[in-house]
């Protein structure tokens, strides 16, 4: 039940994200998600293994909760980007869509009867992945796209808890490193886009079509 409470809080962060306009609040929510993920993963540990504990601490709190949001905050300051530009889809529909995603994840996972799947994580991960993809589709700003990507990565993290996959430590570390470097690379290119086009709107990135 404690795990479920954390998952509940996690889904609440999704709802808050859905109507957030200030970019700072987005980053705060990402930080909170990182911390919540640590709690969720910690409760999953059957036996405390110092190495593994250190790993999930690194993965969730330090990288997801601290380094990435701080990096994005630097990016935000550099590009002077404080409020999300209005997307074509109204926030009202976004709130509805994300609520629908949460309900969908819940209904889907309550209809799956599989001993090898921990459905409570599955429900949250489906909702989170859908939210991430939704952000990437709906928003017209590459900064928000990165945020959507990170939300989706959090969903994938929950999904890996749901399937209880036991990847070797080396593989896990490499996956983490890949994602982290990926975010850095995306951030560097986004900064370049900000410098070159003076803003980060996707509509400016349409020369290739001509």
């Amino acid at each position, binding site marked *: 039940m*404690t795990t479920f409470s954390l998952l509940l809080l996690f889904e*609440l962060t999704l709802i808050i994200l*859905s109507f957030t306009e200030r970019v700072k609040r987005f980053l705060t929510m990402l930080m909170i998600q990182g911390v919540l993920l640590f709690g969720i993963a910690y409760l999953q540990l059957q036996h405390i293994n110092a190495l593994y504990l250190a790993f999930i601490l690194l993965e969730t709190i330090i990288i997801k909760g601290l380094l990435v949001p701080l990096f994005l905050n630097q990016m935000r300051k550099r590009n002077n980007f404080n409020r999300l530009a209005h997307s074509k889809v109204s926030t009202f529909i976004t709130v509805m869509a994300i609520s629908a995603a949460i309900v969908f994840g819940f209904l889907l996972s309550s209809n799956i009867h599989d001993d090898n799947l921990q459905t409570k994580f599955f429900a949250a991960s489906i909702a989170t992945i859908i939210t991430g993809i939704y952000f990437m589709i709906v928003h017209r700003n590459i900064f928000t796209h990165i945020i959507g990507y990170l939300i989706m990565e959090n969903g994938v993290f929950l999904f890996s808890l749901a399937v209880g996959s036991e990847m070797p430590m080396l593989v896990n570390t490499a996956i983490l490193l890949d994602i982290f470097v990926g975010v850095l690379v995306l951030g560097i290119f986004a900064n370049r886009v900000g410098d070159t086009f003076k803003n980060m709107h996707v509509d400016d990135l349409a020369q290739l079509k001509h």
Partner: protein
Amino acid sequence: MNGLGFLLSIVSSLLFPGIIAVTKAKLSGRKGPGIFQPLFDAARLFRKGSIYSVTTSIIFQIAPVIYFASIVVALLFMPFGQYKGFLSFEVDFVFFSYLLAVGKFVMIIGAMDTGSGFEGMGANREALYSMLVEPAFFILMGSLALLTNHTSFYSLFVHIHFDSVLSYLIALLAIYLFVQIAMVENSRIPIDDPKTHLELTMIHEVMVLDNSGFDMCLIHLATGLKFALYGGLIANFIFPDTWPLYTQIAVFLMVNLLFVIAVGFLEAFRARNKLEKNPKWILTLSSISMVVFLSVLVIVHKYFLE
């Protein structure tokens, strides 16, 4: 003893507007009016007669009375610990909610009746926001009903128990939702600012521009009563019925006081939303109560999530 909740709510409602005003004044470093100032105002208005525009009809004249009466009747449902309210029956929260809706409805058509463009606009917004907040209230009450397996206010609050982390979390969220629903129902910050002076951005205040004297007095008192309604519900939600009666009364008043001070705090520190943001904000309340509902489903094992 069944009317205890009703009486305590009436008493505390008289002080609510004053306490809110004092809290806000203190927080913003002003001296502010006394706690009883709103009551004096009400008394002054009570002594005056009403002035009606020639374009209005009987609807406009009876609207404030029906509005006030609907809230008083709604208060009759207020339970108190192990005591029922004056009225109590199965699924009375639906009746309760629509009683409030009736009051709101007559106010809206009363505002329309004046033929003023401003009042029509305010009525329009009031109707929209009430409509949007309704699912939040019903889903929340439905979750609580599901959690306890009871459907009247009285038995619902008597049978509610908190034993796990998840249920505490649900309780916290429910209180949060009650407070926010109260803010929306009363058209307070962040939905609307009662202090605003521009008719274009008003919601509730613009609806009652033409009311005066006795009618205005009723409307002022109704605001306090409405806060008392939600304050009472929250108080019932919190304390168990096994405590001694005097403690319960003290706790009830204390919770009400805290609730009102919390409202004052919220109003002092929060900015008012842009009008276009309001529907989205209210919708999130429904989303949150839906998440609460899902969690309750998990608690009562309607759905198994391993």
